[in-house]
């Protein structure tokens, strides 16, 4: 299997989600996966393009796939589920009607590439066993709930990865790096998605519900794989707290940041300082746990 993978960060990862970008690159590097950023990639169009017409979205996203193809790469990985959906939608539109698609795109395209998420890449190319072996600092003692968001595995026919109602890919990764994963019933509930800006009260309501459930099941942190989810849960957590009249102070980390920590990568390389809710509480717990573990094993 080719180790090189085309990398499509997407606009969010250049801005508000830059730590996702950083940690993704760092983790892949550490695990021996070579990411090649698609040269001169453009915005996938996100929901607005889709709102105009799916073909616009397909064309905007499609340019990136064409560029990846030109670069001779056959697997495109994007950490952002929104981009993932747009890229997969693009392939679908191409398959439906190649000619119409190429007209919209304005260049030629073969449709040879495959698009995967970072979770899928980690599970397919590394696997939980190998990942567990690569761990240097297991996050033992950390109760982390996986929050997949609504887009990553749905609709099933489209995602063709994991279970749409009770996905487990992130659970498996978290377990591989030593976390305790409580049953989290809101793995795929919608957090409010793009309405942070336009319909803020909706977001504070939905996000509040998710954070509340995370606290109820005893989470010390939430693992996410989506920049929009992360924004709503982390950046907007204060807004959510204000709207719901309560305090959560729940760190929300990208799965890549957690994996990076377990692999023993430097916090700067993972952009931990970019989080709004400080992960300090989580990190200290892990330290304590590993200290106890250390002392136990020393004693033994």
């Amino acid at each position, binding site marked *: 299997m080719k180790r090189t993978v085309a990398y499509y960060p997407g606009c969010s990862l250049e801005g508000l989600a830059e730590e996702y970008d950083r940690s993704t690159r760092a983790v892949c590097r550490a695990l021996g996966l070579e990411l090649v950023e698609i040269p001169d990639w453009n915005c996938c169009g996100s929901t607005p393009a889709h709102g105009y017409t799916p073909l616009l979205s397909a064309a905007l996203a499609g340019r990136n796939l064409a560029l990846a193809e030109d670069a001779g790469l056959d697997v495109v990985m994007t950490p952002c589920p929104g981009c993932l959906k747009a890229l997969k939608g693009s392939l679908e539109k191409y398959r439906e009607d190649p000619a119409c698609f190429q007209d919209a795109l304005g260049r030629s395209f073969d449709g040879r590439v495959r698009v995967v998420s970072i979770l899928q890449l980690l599970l397919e190319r590394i696997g939980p066993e190998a990942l567990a072996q690569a761990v240097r600092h297991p996050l033992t003692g950390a109760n982390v709930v996986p929050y997949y968001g609504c887009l990553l595995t749905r609709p099933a026919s489209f995602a063709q990865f994991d*279970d*749409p109602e*009770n996905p487990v890919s992130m659970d498996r990764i978290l377990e591989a790096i030593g976390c305790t994963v409580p049953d989290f019933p809101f793995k795929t509930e919608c957090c409010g998605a793009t309405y942070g800006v336009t319909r803020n009260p909706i977001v504070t309501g939905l996000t509040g519900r998710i954070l509340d459930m995370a606290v109820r099941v005893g989470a010390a942190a939430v693992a996410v794989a989506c920049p929009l989810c992360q924004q709503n849960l982390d950046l907007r957590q204060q807004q959510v707290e204000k709207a719901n009249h309560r305090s959560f102070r729940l760190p929300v980390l990208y799965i890549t940041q957690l994996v990076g920590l377990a692999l023993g990568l430097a916090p700067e390389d993972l952009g931990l300082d970019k989080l709004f809710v400080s992960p300090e509480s989580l990190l200290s717990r892990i330290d304590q746990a590993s200290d106890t573990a250390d002392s136990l094993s020393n004693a033994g």
Partner: protein
Amino acid sequence: MRIGVFVCQCGTNIASTVDTGAVAQRALDYPDVVFATDYMYTCSEPGQQEIQKAIAEHRLQGVVVAACSPRMHEATFRRAVEKAGLNRYMFEMANIREHVSWIGQDKGANTLKAMELVRMAVEKLRRNEPLFASEVPINKRVLVIGGGVAGIQAALDCADAGLDVVLVEREQSIGGKMAKLDKTFPTIDCSSCILGPKMVDVAQKENITLHAYSEVEAVSGYIGNFTVKIRKKATYVDWDACTGCGLCMEKCPSKKTVDRFNENLGTTSAIQIPFPQAIPKKARIQKDACRYFATGKCKVCQKICPTNAIHYDMEDREVVEEVGAIIVATGYDLFDPAPYGEYGAGRYPDVITGIQFERILSASGPFGGHVKRPSDGKEPKDIVFVACVGSRDKSVDRPYCSGICCMYIAKQAILARDHLPGVQCYVFYMDIRSPGKNYDEFVRRAIEEYGVQYIRGRVGKIYPRGDRMVVQGADTLLGAQVEVEADLVVLATGVESSRGAKELAEKLRISYDQYGFYMESHPKLRPVETNTAGVYLAGACQGPKDIPASVAQGSAAASKVLALFARDTIATDPQVAGVLESVCIGCGKCLSVCPFGAIQWKTLRDGSRKAEVLETVCQGCGLCNATCPPKAIQLKHFTDDQILAELDALCA
């Protein structure tokens, strides 16, 4: 051949638009026709006598009647010519009423068409041969496969009529699903009180041979004479010796065995009698749970058994039964709700299925009839029922209605309230289907007298919050999303075809629909027959059905068998396929197409292999005839020769 032609006027029905006289006149020109006439009402008594008279007078060897549809009077005229001494198959009809006089006004064209039809009939008749029905003796024993309530009813009815019955049940005890039920709608009588006596009857009837924990391996033969191979699976207990005392169960150290009879809600011993009322009440060792089989040590049951019934070296045994008819009553299975990830069945202990709740309600169930939730044994305060789980749902390939769940939900809600008067029940439903006698009244009682809250809408998601479950659904009557917090959620899982139904169908050569339910001969008029003669259906194996309908079908199937067995022999329709051995090349194509398994191999003295038709099994469809490359196999009365003769008469 000397042929007579009778053209019927049918009063004016035919005569007004067909010149019947001219048709008769013209018929005289056709080969072999020695007599032709037209007549006012040929089917009337005098009309028939006219035919008989002509047969005698003109020494006719064959008769053509041009009249109405053969579907109307073919049998009448066949009887008439037979009475006059002809073979009943030396007769043909030309349909000049339904297919001519009634559909066209142009007398010229009609008359011409009638002439041609008569000519076709004459040409066919010239190639007809006398056919004779054969009589085969009937073996008056009946096999019933499946010992649920439908099979039990069928077996008892047959036994009451004095027949020898062989009952094969796959499980250790008969009783089927009904044995697991607590009470039954719409009367709320106790299931084991009404089923128990019937089960005991089965055990006590001398003319019922029960093979429990057995399966049908192979079926051969045909109506009146089937040979059935039955595999009696090893129980490791000699049932002739076992008295059902239950000592072994008490002492067996392997107590953590999943209790399948209690739908996995409790545990039992490795050696077990599934429930106190089991028939036969005999013990069986569940091999995969037994310590002796795993480790070679234990043998506690063998030591304790007062009758030395335990034999660890027992093996499956085969028995052969000869019967004349078969009733299939293999029932149904229940949908596994795992595909509904959003409902969390299997993940959350307090999300259970309807049949599990039935066990919880039952006094002989895992909780002794106390309504508790499985997770922590607490009494529930709120119970939510979810209808149509695995029914009416294309996304899980179950588009059909299961027919029973609306009713059992209402029943279970009523019973839950009877057990725990403080409990509040909610039902999420799409439609309430309760068309039986007193059924809708029953549902109304749940709503009106028992205060069960019916909410019209499906459930989107079920998830835990604290130690309760949140049921998130819709009330489409309100146009709102609704949430109900519950201690226990009961999924009304739908009915699906019995595991192994298709394999059994193949052994029996009966058909099934795309969901594995067996197909009846006609959905309205032959509901318990199959297209394979001598094989009948009863109960939920044909489609979702409640107890009253299953029992009715059990009795109906029994009455079909009794009707068949009322005679000592059966006459077979001689319009069947036959093989010209000298032409048959032994290719086997006919064997593979025959839907009824009516063709078998026969080895000639020279060692060559030829097809042979079992005349009693052949239904006369003619598929083999159309398939046979050298045309060695011919459907009598519809041979290639005869059909082509009709064609020639028309075109040449």
